[in-house]
């Protein structure tokens, strides 16, 4: 099951029967910005998350928790990547 922030927003918006453009109008932003959140997985600012929760009829706390978990996942992946890159470099230098 997809537990991402993007998926949650898409699900709530569909439940409301809104299109991407409808949500953008309600948020006073562009459809491109909503695309960034739903299709590119961008996490918006806390203020925007609260606004989204109010509009989509959910608790802000729930959305913030999902956003936090996703950010933590991203950071952990980035750290893991750096560690792997470092290890590869170290092994290469050892071979020489």
């Amino acid at each position, binding site marked *: 099951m997809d537990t991402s922030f993007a998926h949650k927003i898409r699900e709530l918006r569909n439940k409301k029967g809104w*299109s*991407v*453009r409808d949500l953008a109008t309600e948020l006073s932003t562009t*459809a*491109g910005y909503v*695309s*960034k959140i*739903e*299709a*590119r997985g961008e996490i918006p600012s806390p203020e925007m998350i609260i606004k989204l929760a109010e509009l989509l009829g959910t608790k802000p706390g729930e959305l913030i928790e999902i956003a936090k978990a996703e950010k933590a996942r991203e950071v952990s992946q980035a750290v893991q990547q750096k560690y792997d890159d470092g290890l590869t470099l170290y092994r290469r230098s050892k071979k020489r």
Partner: protein
Amino acid sequence: MYQLPQPKAMSQKQIVAQADNLWKEYIKEVGWRYVIENGIKFDDVHEALLYPKYEIILDKNEYLGEDDCGELILGQFLPREKTALINKQLLENNDPRTVFTEWHEVCGHGILHGELLRKNSHKLTRINSTQKDIDTFLKHFENRFEWQANVFAANIGAPRVFVACMYIKLFSMRHRFLYRGAGNYTLSFCGRDFRFYIGSLNELCWQIGRLMKHRFGGLSAECLSYQVLDAVIDSDIERAPNQCDFAHQLGNVIESMNIL
């Protein structure tokens, strides 16, 4: 095994007209100036038009492996989920086929065939695209489904009018390029002269496509060469001197934007 549904027959002209309409909508969203200055990037078009209008999701995080014939699956479209998948392996290897596969899955299968595929989604859960499918560019009699997706994708990713605009801008040309047969050609690109031996018409198109591809979000030179051939090349020596319509129409578009 369930057979692919047959899409209704469409001529190349009809597909290009559909692609042009979508392209005009994109221009309406972002403006000509933005496109001329930044080129065409898949992510920009997806964000500004394709996702808001069609809600097709693009996922590049999965390894898709190979099909039953052992061919690498480049992309996949899931009609029920309205999701296009691009093989992560392509991205990791900086494969030049990546960008066209994105256009092919999202626009070709997701938009052009979207409705037909969703109607059949109870039987057909996914569509794979391999190199063989991408190669059906000129062979519409072999696989109508993939051919339509390819033509539509190419005309969204590199519309002829934009190819012609970029040709005027980058090569400082005011007329179509005249192919006079195999021989040495000099291409003046961004103020620098490049001298090539060109062996065939296809090779000329490929060279022009290669030089322009950075304005098309990394679309491969091979894919661009089809559009270059249609948009800016003339191989008819008799007719070429009368091709002033091209310069007149497109030159006016560019000049009125005051960008060159």
